[in-house]
């Protein structure tokens, strides 16, 4: 892969970390058009607004946040399904931000995507064999009987019966369909697979199977995953690092357990307090912070810190100055947070005017 003369300006990468994907101030705005005949732009949805993030080789980067926070849009920006409004995307040190479809072709082999909807992501009118064989056909590699063999190998690898080569997606269950999607993503032996809520449409029992398959494949092929989900517990369990998004911005990045035990951003803490725990006693003891208000419209997001209208700790500065995403002194270097008033360990988060509940010592 040729480096397209883009490396010098970027800050030096820490030696011990090998960056596979580098996102720099990625912005994606969708125009909102009026319904009149002229269809003038009346505003923009700030789906992704200035995300700077590195994905390290071999890791699983979890991406969490509530619906509409821009995680899927970010995923589609990484795989270049969307053109970014501004910012920079580097894959393996090469700037791929503005490459045309043809120029992008070799990079497509390095990054693949697994989609959320196992029903919508497979063409209902095509046989499974040709769906999984599509990557070979598009990239003009492996043809004829060899392709059939390769497809059937892929099918058995993801736990499908290779005999079912000639069946249609409608003949499979949701979990099996998602396996077809995995096989398709795996066909070109990519380095990076972006999983856009790959299991949220599946039954819980099937979820575990698909997750285990993904982990197994990761070990076997040293894959890098960007794993999007709204299930914080699941993401924490399988991710090397977790990035929390709110209204188009990454507000906290930390290792899975670190985020669980020491959330620094009030939003992460609220999100954690809302995720279900299997132990009813622990759940009863836990204090839940229910955020006030709704997520503001991404068409006109609040200035400065996006979270300030709902934040129990917001002060004047939060309305005026956007906090940078930095590592706090005393924290792990990989733990980044964008907050003026990060939570200390064990700090109780509550609205100031809220009735004091029985204070836990």
């Amino acid at each position, binding site marked *: 892969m040729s480096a397209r003369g883009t490396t010098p300006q970027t800050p030096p990468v820490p030696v011990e970390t090998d960056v596979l994907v580098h996102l720099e101030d990625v912005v994606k705005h969708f125009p909102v058009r009026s319904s009149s005949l002229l269809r003038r732009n009346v505003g923009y949805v700030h789906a992704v607004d200035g995300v700077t993030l590195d994905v390290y080789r071999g890791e699983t980067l979890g991406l969490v946040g509530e619906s509409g926070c821009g995680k899927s849009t970010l995923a589609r920006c990484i795989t270049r399904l969307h053109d970014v409004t501004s910012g920079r995307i580097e894959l393996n040190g090469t700037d791929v931000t503005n490459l045309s479809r043809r120029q992008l072709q070799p990079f497509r082999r390095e990054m693949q995507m697994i989609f959320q909807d196992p029903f919508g992501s497979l063409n209902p009118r*095509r046989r499974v064999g040709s769906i999984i064989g599509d990557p070979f056909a598009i990239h003009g590699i492996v043809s004829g009987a060899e392709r*059939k063999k390769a497809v059937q190998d892929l099918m058995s690898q993801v736990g499908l019966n*290779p005999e*079912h080569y000639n069946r*249609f997606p409608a003949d499979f269950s949701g979990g099996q369909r998602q396996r077809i999607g995995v096989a398709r993503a795996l066909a070109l032996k990519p380095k990076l697979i972006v999983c856009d809520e790959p299991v949220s449409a599946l039954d819980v029992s099937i979820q575990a199977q698909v997750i285990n398959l993904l982990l197994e494949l990761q070990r076997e092929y040293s894959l890098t995953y960007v794993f999007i989900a709204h299930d914080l517990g699941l993401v924490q369990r399988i991710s090397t690092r977790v990035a929390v998004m709110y209204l188009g911005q990454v507000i906290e990045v930390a290792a899975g357990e670190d985020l669980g035990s020491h959330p620094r951003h009030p939003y992460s803490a609220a999100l954690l307090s809302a995720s279900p725990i299997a132990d009813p006693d622990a759940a009863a003891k836990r204090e839940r912070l229910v955020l006030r208000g709704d997520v503001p419209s991404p068409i006109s997001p609040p200035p400065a810190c996006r979270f300030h209208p709902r934040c129990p700790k917001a002060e004047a500065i939060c309305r005026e100055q956007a906090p940078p995403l930095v590592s706090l002194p005393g924290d792990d270097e990989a733990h980044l947070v964008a907050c003026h008033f990060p939570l200390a360990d064990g700090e109780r988060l509550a609205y100031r005017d809220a009735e004091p509940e029985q204070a836990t010592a």
Partner: protein
Amino acid sequence: MSVGPEMSELVEEAIAPAGQTPRGIEGRSPWQLAWERLRHDKVAIASAVTIVLIVLMAICAPLVAKIVGHGPNTQYSFGTSDSGLPVGPSSKFLFGADELGRDVFVRVFYGARISLLAGVVASLLAVAAGVIIGLLAGYLGRIVDTVLSRFMDVVLSMPYLIFAIALVSVVGPSLSVSIAVIAFFSFAAVGRVVRGQVLSLSQREFVEAARSLGAGPIRIMFVDILPNVLAQVIVYATLLVPAAIVFEATLSFFGLGVTPPTATWGGMIAEAQNYYQVAWWMLVMPSVFLLLLTLAFNLLGDSVRDAFDPRYTRTTAK
């Protein structure tokens, strides 16, 4: 999870040339399922048989002319009575004769050729143009969509008969002009249907998946999207054929289609206008065949639509 010995055997069997029946259950395509349903649909079978018979009529027209011994455009003096009126059906003229003493029976056979040719060719042209324009407009969007959609709107709002009269007066009537006119005024309806389908299909994740694999717009339009609209297109095409046949008959009726001595059903009906009170056969014979053909195509179109509808199961009922 490696491929075991029995597995690879199966793989080999699957790779083996077609003709051998593979073990296990074969996934059936929506086409195969539709075909299954169609085969068990009595109306569809009857319609198809009618269409095949009329196609045979068209093919055998010269043979019939030879057997009967009457040319399609030959005027027979014994075809008109002493008072100059056409003679009715008899052993000489099975369907009677027309006002010029031509054999209506033979002319109906020859008329089938024009009707089928115009109907099928014009429909095929219209469907091909409609599919391509609909795919381009729906998938590429933006300015392409605006231009093509407005163009289709203009075509749909044009008064086709006035246009046909104007065109014929410039280039002169002929079969190819009729076909061109019919195709031109039919493609826009197909194009609109296809565009609408494509618009919703291109939002589906499988199109995104194809894009993320690096597929280009041509491949996505024809490999990923087209198979999903084809069922609707086929239904529309089977319903377009009778419309085109009637369209051709209308053009012939107004003298804008095929030039006179050539037998067409529309032209024969037009000629019968002045004589139907004394010579009903001149009107009834071509009308009955026109009705039969269009009815058969329409019913077949309905059946095809039902066959492609997954919610509709009458395979087991009958």
